[in-house]
């Protein structure tokens, strides 16, 4: 993969290291002025795990994602990716270390084709991105990879369609295709089912189930019905704090979950 090419950062981190934690967040704090958005958050996600993060609106779920991906800098605490402390590592370098994310609010290149969107995801990890002299369309290997990434989410037949002319569900799948194209070790999905119809939910769900277990997934989701059985373990956030954490059954059965989230 592009990430393993020489000159790129951190290729091979975590190889043959199934024993270590994929993602470890320790005592993480973040405030916006007087508002404490994340308070002493601890999270340990094992390699291959599917972790679901739930919590009401404003619980600090997306902020936690932004801290993990480095788009925000924590006030204190640490973030460790496969034994490497990345708390102070620049956000863009975390992509090179094997972290990819999708956005709750669709963040795509609206003026470009679906294919170009996928190509940009691949290019981000390739040294080719600095090349101003060759034609991008003639990079056969890269283009083939982009088509493969789109095939994986069932969009290759409309690869040349402008993104602006696609449905919301298709855009969601492009988001996921772009994250998967980067061949991440840890995949962060921010509400992948938000705003989708029942059919589209089923499609996206199948897509997520098909992701192999060498990818660790952390997922924020409101839609418990669709997301619950995807998860191995669940973390419940409330007012920026981890209230409950455990297996699916444990968290669902916990009275605090019912109190906070299910509104009983």
């Amino acid at each position, binding site marked *: 993969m592009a990430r393993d090419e020489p000159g790129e950062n951190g290729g091979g981190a975590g190889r043959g290291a199934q024993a270590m934690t994929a993602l470890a967040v320790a005592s993480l704090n973040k405030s916006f002025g007087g508002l404490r958005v994340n308070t002493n958050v601890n999270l340990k996600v094992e390699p291959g795990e599917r972790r679901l993060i739930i919590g009401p609106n404003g619980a600090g779920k997306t902020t936690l994602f932004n801290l993990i991906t480095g788009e925000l800098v924590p006030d204190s605490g640490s973030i460790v990716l496969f034994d490497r402390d990345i708390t102070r590592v620049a956000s863009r370098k975390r992509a090179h270390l094997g972290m990819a994310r999708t956005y709750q609010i669709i963040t795509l290149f609206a003026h470009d084709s679906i294919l170009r969107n996928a190509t940009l995801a691949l290019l981000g990890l390739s040294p080719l991105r600095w090349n*101003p002299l060759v034609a991008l369309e003639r990079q056969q290997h890269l283009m083939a990879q982009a088509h493969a990434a789109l095939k994986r989410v069932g969009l290759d037949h409309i690869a040349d369609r402008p993104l602006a002319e696609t449905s919301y569900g298709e855009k969601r799948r492009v988001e996921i295709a772009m994250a998967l194209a980067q061949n991440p070790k840890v995949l962060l999905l921010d509400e992948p089912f938000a705003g989708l119809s029942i059919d589209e939910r089923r499609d996206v769900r199948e897509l997520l189930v098909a992701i192999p277990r060498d990818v660790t997934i952390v997922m924020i989701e409101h839609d418990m019905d669709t997301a619950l059985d995807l998860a191995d373990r669940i973390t419940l956030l409330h007012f920026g704090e981890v209230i409950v954490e455990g297996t699916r059954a444990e968290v669902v059965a916990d009275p605090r979950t019912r109190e906070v989230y299910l509104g009983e």
Partner: protein
Amino acid sequence: MIDRRIAIAVTILALLAVPYAITEVYYVNIASQILLYAIFALGLNVLVGYAGLVSLGHAGLFGVASYAVASLLAAGHGHAIAILAALAIGLVVTAGFAALSLRATGISFIMITLALGEILWGLAYRWISVTNGDNGVNVATRPMPFGIALTAARSFYDATLIVFLVAVAATAIFVRSPFGAALCGTRDQPRRMNALGYHVWMIRFGAFMFSGLLTSIAGILFVYYNQFISPQALQLNASAEALLMVISGGAGTLLGPVVGAGLVVIMKNVVSAYIERWNFMLGAIFVAIVVFMPEGLVPGAVRLSRSAWRAMSRAKTAVAPVAGRKP
């Protein structure tokens, strides 16, 4: 592909034929001006159109290269050294310009470039020991590449045309490259690009350097064209004019800035001879462009001709069955 190649060949031949078609020296000079300003606009368009960063200080960079050539020639250096040193100085100043202004985007970026452009203008105006202040610097001779004198309007046009074609080709390659795609990505979704692993700042810096290179080249052609440089060339007005070329022709298109440069130079030089209130005319044309083709002349014309074509073919298919029924 073949159609495209033929179109390119025809265009180049037409451009080569310009000095033969219009023999009057005055108009050949106007054509040279259009080409050199088109290179300037191409350079500015790299930032405005592809990076989404609007600069109002580019005339400063343009002027730096002009003054560098003029001062080095005045100091007794040859043309080759003056031109190469001017390119180097232009790039160094561009790097400083970029490092300072890329701390921001949007309105703040415009304001920083505006301020930096004004500083360079102030330097040209007040650093009299180098720039001779308001009196400007004269350039006695034009260079003689491969022994060909560029004194005549026609030969200067030919030299400018060659540089122009290289600039257009370089820009075309740049835009289609992976780096060009990454640059457009930083314009549309900087946050996403960062998360995908791109160094957004460095990509913008690289684009700024390419923009500065084209701008410096245009500045060098300008000083040889006029054989004179004064602080006027660095005024805010000049930056705004270049921006108008880019926007009126079509920012983010390859040929838009070229068409825009033609429009502005012709209005300024030709129309002004017939209409005293040519500034008013220029303003009215820009208002018309903004109203009818807000995306600029080139993409606007493509859109209009496409819809006209569609309307025509629809009219044909609508008429055909009626005609078939008649007999």
